[in-house]
């Protein structure tokens, strides 16, 4: 069984590296050295921003090609959110999200393991809290710190004046209303989300929108939710000929798929890209 | 257009599901003749008629119509040469009697006097009343008459009907045979499968007697329907009384 093999090999490799680590790494003594994650988004944050040698396990979803951003390091074990999987790895820090794998997290906590719940983020304020919570647990990881500061810096910049109208058209004709992070990003970047605060007051969350409503709203920028290239009828609306005129005139912006399942990962990038897009439209 | 059909069968054989249902049948059907194919159940009457009509392909031997091998005649042309009424023909849709009869004109494409022909054909089977009635609401005998009108409506010089009198009452049996007699007299070739030997004896010019897929006897009814032959083939005793070549009546009994 491959998983058990890697479990056996991982500590051996870890001890080999440990000597070097103690000498070279400029990390605080308190920082956890064997981190496991029970949450897809936290997986991604760890893999992107934290030294891979400190990660012992991520969820199996992170190996899925829909979510994987780079090849997984060999020594990282995949877990399916079960307590016993993590026990044998003896991590010194288990990160869990607000939802999912809650039972495993509670069980591990009962067994005396250090489990930290990192809250999910549905808006920019929560996003910053999430990064902060992660920072206090992981110690001063250079990349994590850098990303948190970068987001803070961008958010401190003034919102550009005279908003440009925009509308999101996601898979299955879904658009994002005012309660959503995507809406906040648009507004912060100087856009006016046309799907927000419509007369019926239905614009707070996700909403189905027909193509003719998009055309009638005449947004200056059409925002698509991208990522997947494989065929799905869910993407049919975005491939309709009437959308082509937006594509042809460059009035389309594609949000990265990561924004959907792990906004912390890309929020700063998206904000900057949206601002640039706005500049190019205003000019 | 061919107005007459001279049909010849040579050494006809037919295999179905590995069984020989027709074997070495040589016979002829001439214009102006009304021929009855008779024989006990399972003798091969229906099979012979279907081979003649081109519905089944013979496994051996040939059927030729006017000296032309039947299989080499294009399907559309053969349909104009030969009209066929199978033993059972249940219409799948409840069309009106007139519409069913009109189907007999399909091989001729658009026929200008279609309605007139349909009416005449229905009159010949005493079925004027069935013209507007849905065929699924007709009784068995009434439906049979409509189907016969379908057979008569075209101009085919060769008419083949498998037990046309089945389900008909006695009056309409006689009427039908008289009609077919008249059609044969007008120069057409008519072939019927019949169970009623007295009808065959009375109306037909020629009789083919089949037994076990082989041709047992052929000739005029008077030649074929001898007490000895009938006794051998059917296992019944019989007595035909003839007057002017026509059988006046027939008496049967089990041997």
């Amino acid at each position, binding site marked *: 069984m491959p998983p058990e093999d890697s479990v056996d090999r991982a500590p051996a490799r870890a001890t080999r590296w440990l000597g070097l680590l103690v000498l070279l790494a400029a990390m605080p003594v308190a920082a956890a050295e064997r981190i496991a994650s029970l949450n897809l988004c936290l997986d991604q944050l760890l893999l992107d921003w934290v030294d891979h040698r400190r990660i012992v396990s991520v969820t199996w979803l992170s190996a899925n090609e*829909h979510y994987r951003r780079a090849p997984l390091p060999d020594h990282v074990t995949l877990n399916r959110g079960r307590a016993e999987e993590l026990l044998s790895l003896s991590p010194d820090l288990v990160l869990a999200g607000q939802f999912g794998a809650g039972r495993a997290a509670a069980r591990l906590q009962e067994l005396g393991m250090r489990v930290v719940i990192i809250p999910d983020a549905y808006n920019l304020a929560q996003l910053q809290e999430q990064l902060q919570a992660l920072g206090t647990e992981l110690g001063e990881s250079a990349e994590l710190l850098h990303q948190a500061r970068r987001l803070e810096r961008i958010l401190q910049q003034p919102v550009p004046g005279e908003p440009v109208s925009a509308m999101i058209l996601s*898979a*299955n*004709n879904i658009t994002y209303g005012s309660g959503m992070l995507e809406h906040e990003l648009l507004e912060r970047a100087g856009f006016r989300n046309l799907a927000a605060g419509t007369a019926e007051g239905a614009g707070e969350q996700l909403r*189905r929108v*027909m*193509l*003719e*409503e998009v*055309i*009638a709203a*005449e947004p200056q920028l059409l925002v698509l939710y991208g990522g*997947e290239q*494989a*065929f*799905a*009828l*869910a*993407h*049919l*609306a975005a*491939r*309709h*000929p*009437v959308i082509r*005129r937006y594509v042809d005139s460059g009035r389309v912006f594609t949000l990265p798929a990561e924004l959907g399942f792990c906004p912390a990962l890309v929020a700063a990038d998206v904000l900057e890209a949206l601002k640039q897009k706005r500049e190019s439209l205003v000019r | 257009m061919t107005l007459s059909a001279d049909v010849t069968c040579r050494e006809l054989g037919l295999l179905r599901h590995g069984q020989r249902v027709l074997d070495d049948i040589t016979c002829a059907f001439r214009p102006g003749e009304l021929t009855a194919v008779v024989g006990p159940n399972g003798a091969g009457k229906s099979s012979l008629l*279907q081979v003649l*009509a*081109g*519905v089944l392909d013979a496994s051996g031997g040939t059927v030729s119509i006017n000296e032309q091998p039947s299989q080499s005649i294009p*399907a*559309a042309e*053969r*349909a*104009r040469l*030969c*009209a*066929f*009424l*199978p033993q059972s*023909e*249940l*219409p*799948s*849709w*409840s*069309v*009106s009697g007139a*519409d*069913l009869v009109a*189907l*007999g004109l*399909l*091989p001729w494409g658009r026929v200008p006097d279609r309605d007139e022909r349909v009416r005449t054909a229905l009159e010949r089977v005493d079925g004027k009343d069935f013209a507007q009635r*849905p065929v*699924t609401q007709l009784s068995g005998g009434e439906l049979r008459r409509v189907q016969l009108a*379908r057979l008569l409506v075209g101009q085919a010089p060769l008419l083949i009907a498998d037990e046309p009198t089945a389900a008909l009452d006695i009056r309409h049996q006689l009427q039908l045979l008289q009609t077919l007699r008249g059609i044969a007299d007008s120069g057409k070739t008519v072939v019927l499968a019949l169970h009623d030997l007295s009808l065959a004896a009375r109306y037909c010019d020629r009789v083919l007697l089949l037994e076990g897929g082989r041709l047992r006897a052929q000739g005029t009814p008077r030649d074929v329907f001898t007490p000895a032959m009938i006794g051998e083939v059917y296992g019944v005793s019989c007595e035909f009384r003839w007057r002017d070549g026509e059988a006046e009546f027939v008496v049967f009994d089990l041997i």
Partner: protein
Amino acid sequence: MFDNNKIALGLLAGALPLALVAALLSGPVNIDFAAALQQGWRSENSDAVILWQLRLPRALLAILVGAALGMGGAAMQGMLRNPLAEPALLGVSSGAALAAILLLYYGLAWQSGWWLPLLAIGGAFIAVLSVWLLAGRGASASRLVLAGVAINAFLSALMALALNYAPSMFAMQEIVFWLLGSLANRGWDQLLLALPFILAGGLLLFASRNYLRALTLGEATAVSLGFGGRRYPLALLLGIAAAVGAAVAVAGTIGFIGLVVPHLVRPLVRQDPARLLWASALCGALLLLMADIFVLNFVGAQELRIGAVTAFLGAPFFFWLIVSARRGGAL
């Protein structure tokens, strides 16, 4: 009575343009219809774009698909000599959908051009051929339905399996689309993709009309009437496959149109299986267009699938057919 039938058919034909206008007026956005109509199809004005690029192709696609399904159902009933025959019930649509799924999710993309309808037609052809061979000709209603249900269940399972392993995050939810059909988000491209094949299928079926008439009297009589040989059933099977396959390729499987419509219009054409073809095409177009108008005006969080609407109409009808057959014995 004959005249009444003609009047009824005339009314149906007259209702089609009215329904088309109703469909063009249906939608969440209030458009200035007259102005949009005047601005013409090249206009960049949003009302005109909505009318000419969104609503019109969708409505025309409803007409086209409805006509194809109605005609396909009429032809199948005529060919199998059975009033329970229907493309979706007997797996013909599933065959087309399976082929489309294999192409779309494992092969080329939506804009894969002519391969999509061609493959769907191939799938439909194999399915309808299987039904024809399995159930036999002039099979009893129960034998036909059994064979059809078996084929349909098998193909539906294959569809679900194919989508289960499809490399798409939305694959599982899209089983619903392929099973219930949809006209949402369709444009001129899909209409033009299906049109030539549905027209070709219609022409094949039209060419087979006299064969269908002759089949009223059974296979033996049809042969004696000059319709012997394989080319007649082959043309009919191809015609059904082309019409139904091309319709399914762009709109998914929409059931019951091919069942209900021929039954409703059969009395209007005096049961003639040939005239039933075009009458069913007309009535199928009207029915599917009206179903789509209902879908467009239906308020709900999710899109109402058009196949669900036709099933609402068709399933009770199917029950009624079975009950009346048991009572009358004349199915």
